[in-house]
């Protein structure tokens, strides 16, 4: 039992560190720390830099263009990214549809779509959720009717993040009605330029456009774009279960950025003393750091399990739960650190607020959705109770 890195791993750490020192611009820092996604063009530039270095897909096997890294390397990579103020890579392509394509897709699909994900020529969005479906995904209503060499899609998708910038969407649609609601659902790859697709922004309280409704009106998709077999799309999600823990782990490692953001904000003087030195703020901040230490060690254990090929049970769900709680707390502390000026969201008439003020407020508002999306905290607890505790 030990926490040390080998000499090889230390050398790798150096390599990654100098790479990030070069590619991460300072102007990203505040937004990254506030947990806000960068602009699409910034994310694309970042992904292209990674791809050029051969690190576009840290979690993918080598044969599909990934790095083939083991968990310790991935941990080092994400830790250094965190340290350098780099964002989390956009995950809809890399972590959601990519792995499904390289596991269940046809050779043609692999050849066509995998490189575009790594080098950011394509931008994928996820067409799963529907109005009223929420956590109950199996009740989806979008249909895909076969018509010759094409499927004809009709329906409405909801919460489609970044559909407004995406070039492609992967869609779950019903190809037949079976008694068991999970059956008869197929997975299709759709070019966003196809006629009949309409994207409508959803206005959210953080005032950042990141999600959409997508209307599908006689959208014709070549049958070649069906992934795997018809009617078995629901099952393909299972490949994600194992990968989800890596997404949660990456998020959790990046929590340090939010904590650093709150800490930097607390350099502000209050009655002449830096806020972080006042006992009540200091003890709340220490509590946050301590809980983040626990989270980080949970991630290390998850990584060690993954390295050993061991099932880490519900630890992925636990990490997701605790990550969202800590992110929300950290943003709360950040707002507190801003003091009265936390209310200054947007300067009017060319007035500027200090750069972290609007982003901190936006980040604090955005943070609320992290305990809702990807399986709300309540759903995660249901899952842990059932799978891990047998209740």
């Amino acid at each position, binding site marked *: 039992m030990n926490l040390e890195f080998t000499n090889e791993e230390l050398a790798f750490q150096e390599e990654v560190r100098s790479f990030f020192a070069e590619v991460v611009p300072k102007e990203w820092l505040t937004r990254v720390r506030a947990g806000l996604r960068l602009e699409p063009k910034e994310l694309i530039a970042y992904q292209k830099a990674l791809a050029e270095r051969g690190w576009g897909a840290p979690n993918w096997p080598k044969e599909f263009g990934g790095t083939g890294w083991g968990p310790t390397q991935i941990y080092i990579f994400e830790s250094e990214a965190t340290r350098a103020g780099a964002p989390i890579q956009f995950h809809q392509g890399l972590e959601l549809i990519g792995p499904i394509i390289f596991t269940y897709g046809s050779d043609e699909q692999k050849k066509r779509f995998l490189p575009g994900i790594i080098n950011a020529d394509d931008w994928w969005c996820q067409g799963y959720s529907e109005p009223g479906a929420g956590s109950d995904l199996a009740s989806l209503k979008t249909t895909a009717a076969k018509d010759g060499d094409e499927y004809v899609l009709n329906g409405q998708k909801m919460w489609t993040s970044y559909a407004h910038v995406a070039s492609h969407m992967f869609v779950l649609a019903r190809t037949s009605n079976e008694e068991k609601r999970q059956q008869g659902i197929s997975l299709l790859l759709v070019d966003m330029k196809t006629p009949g697709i309409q994207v409508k922004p959803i206005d959210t309280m953080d005032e950042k456009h990141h999600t959409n409704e997508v209307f599908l009106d006689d959208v014709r998709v070549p049958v070649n774009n069906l992934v795997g077999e018809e009617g078995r799309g629901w099952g393909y999600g299972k490949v994600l279960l194992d990968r989800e823990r890596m997404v949660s782990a990456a998020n959790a490692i990046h929590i340090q950025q939010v904590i650093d953001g709150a800490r930097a904000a607390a350099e502000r003087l209050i009655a002449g003393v830096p806020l972080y030195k006042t006992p009540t703020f200091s003890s709340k901040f220490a509590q946050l750091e301590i809980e983040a230490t626990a989270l980080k060690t949970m991630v290390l254990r998850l990584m060690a399990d993954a390295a050993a090929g061991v099932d880490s049970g519900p630890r992925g769900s636990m990490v997701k739960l605790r990550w969202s709680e800590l992110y929300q707390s950290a943003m709360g502390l950040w707002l507190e650190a801003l003091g009265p000026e936390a209310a*200054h969201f947007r300067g009017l008439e060319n007035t500027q607020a200090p750069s972290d003020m609007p982003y901190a407020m936006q980040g604090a508002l955005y943070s609320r959705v992290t305990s809702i999306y990807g399986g709300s905290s309540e759903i995660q607890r249901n899952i842990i109770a059932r799978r891990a505790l047998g209740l």
Partner: protein
Amino acid sequence: MNFDYSGEQQMLLDSVLRYGLDNWSADKRLACLKDLPSNVTKSWAEMADLGWLMLSIPEEEGGLGGTPVDVMALMEGIGRHLIPVPYVTSCVLVPALLSGTGETATEILEGIGLGNIRAAAGFLESEGGFDLNYVGLSAELSDNRWLLSGEKVHVEDGGDADWYVVSARTAGSIMDSDGISLFLISANSPGLKVENFRAVDGHTHSRLRLDNVNATLVGEKDQALMRIESAVDRAITAHVAEAVASMEMANAVTLDYLGTRRQFGVSIGSFQVLQHRAVDMAIAAEEARSMMLHATLNLNADPVTRKRAVSAAKTRVGQTGLYVAKQAVQLHGGVGTCDELIISHHLKRQMMLDTAYGQADYHRTRFANVS
């Protein structure tokens, strides 16, 4: 010992509730927000016609001489429908600062009461946090005229004020309790630079930079701190009532959602975890309402009792308000984070109410240290 509104107070509350429902209800809100300034102006004029703007102004200064409980009744209506008017600033805080200080003040107060003038007040300075005694903005007497120079980093609802009341240092040094005075300045004074900021809840706040701005002394020179603290406590208590009403509305909306929204074939209100969450939200609202009454009914007590009551209420209502609003969003799921639903607006307002005049922890410390 009695917690009932009088008949008149109940009528006032009912009218404000009706007004809010007619003009700012959830289904009309998004449209209103699209042209917020003109809708606020419209509401302001209507509220003036209804006499609400002069509620807490003393009768001898053209007002109705309303009590803290009268203000509480009105604020419950404003909070329940999240009416984004600068009522507390212009009609509670400023009257408490100005009343009884003489002719100029009386003129301003009459104007406020009639809806012709809006006023705001600035106390806070850079590096002073929420401390009202941290005053560095200087006031120099020159040729019998007061000239003010310095900065106020945050003026609540300063965005469309015609007049500002600001604290300035006339003696002593920064953080001294003595040596603070109040001044009136017009928004279009030479040397005054106003920077405006939109908040997430539809209110507009300001930062003021003053460079030899001509000002009128208000009240006792050097001894304004007690007056300022008392006025701010009144503003806080009005905000507390607004927050409580918003919590109760958020709870009602959420309870309704729990009953109608179905997942996995049943109403989500049948899940025990969500039931207990709703109970904790209801208890939070009960606690908050109790604190609102406690603060309001102690506003005219001796300063120590008043400060402890107000800070206790500010602390607990800040905590429970954020809890309720965050859980209301959480129980709504994804749609809870959307502009379209009223619930996210309650969260935004609760966040801003907690921030105004000091977050929960600031007031918990004040509560502990008052003596």
